[in-house]
């Protein structure tokens, strides 16, 4: 896998968006399964930093993960 392709997969895993299955459960990001263990750890570490940055940019201090969860409970 080219480094550029790997980076794209990592960025997809870093996103907080996850599709729902028919039972309204979150599905894992397909790119996660295309990464090796080192790539998955890198995605995790980048997600930690990304969420902290997002939270600091948000008026209520919520990351995109927090916003996604809030969206789920308010549309139920």
């Amino acid at each position: 896998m080219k480094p550029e392709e790997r980076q794209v997969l990592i960025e997809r895993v870093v996103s907080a968006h996850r599709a729902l299955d028919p039972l309204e459960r979150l599905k894992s990001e397909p790119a996660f399964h295309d990464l090796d263990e080192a790539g998955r750890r890198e995605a995790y570490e980048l997600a930690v930093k990304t969420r902290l940055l997002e939270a600091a940019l948000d008026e209520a201090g919520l990351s995109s993960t927090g916003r996604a969860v809030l969206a789920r409970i308010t549309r139920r």
Partner: protein
Amino acid sequence: MDLDVHLEAIGAGDTQAFARWVAGAEPAVRASLAPFAAQVDVEVVVQEALLRAWQLAPRVQRDGKANCLLRFSVRAARNLAIDEVRHRRREVVRPPSDEELPVAPVEPDPLLRRAIEECRAKLPKNPSRALLARVEAQGTESDSKIAERLGMKLNTLLKNFGRARQFLLECLERRGVHVGRELSL
């Protein structure tokens, strides 16, 4: 900081109180899943664990220690991750004891917020657009849709987002702010 100050309101269905709790709790829940990062999609587990906190908050009993709901969520997250590993690998995974679970909430940091705003103002145009678009999507819109909205190819959006994050992290480091250090990254 004891996030249980929000527990009663959350149990009564107050979503604003839950949002304040999530802001402090999410980093601790995610940090607790570091040992599983190579095996499970941590983002899914974090969101499911936070959702369970909302659903089960009315039944959570205070035990005299701080951060009761956060400890419940960290335990739920670890158990979800273990279930996922067991499901995929059919292997025995030892559940952690409560003493092993990290439960330090994150407090709002106005200085970090100001530093990030100043760094963000210096971002090049396209990384700035990608960062803003993902933040505004609030985790509810796929990257493909965000890319379409911005008139970018998906890979271009993702690369620009990565550049934006790297730019911000480097800008913050020059100011002596090391994002994630308190979470042992």
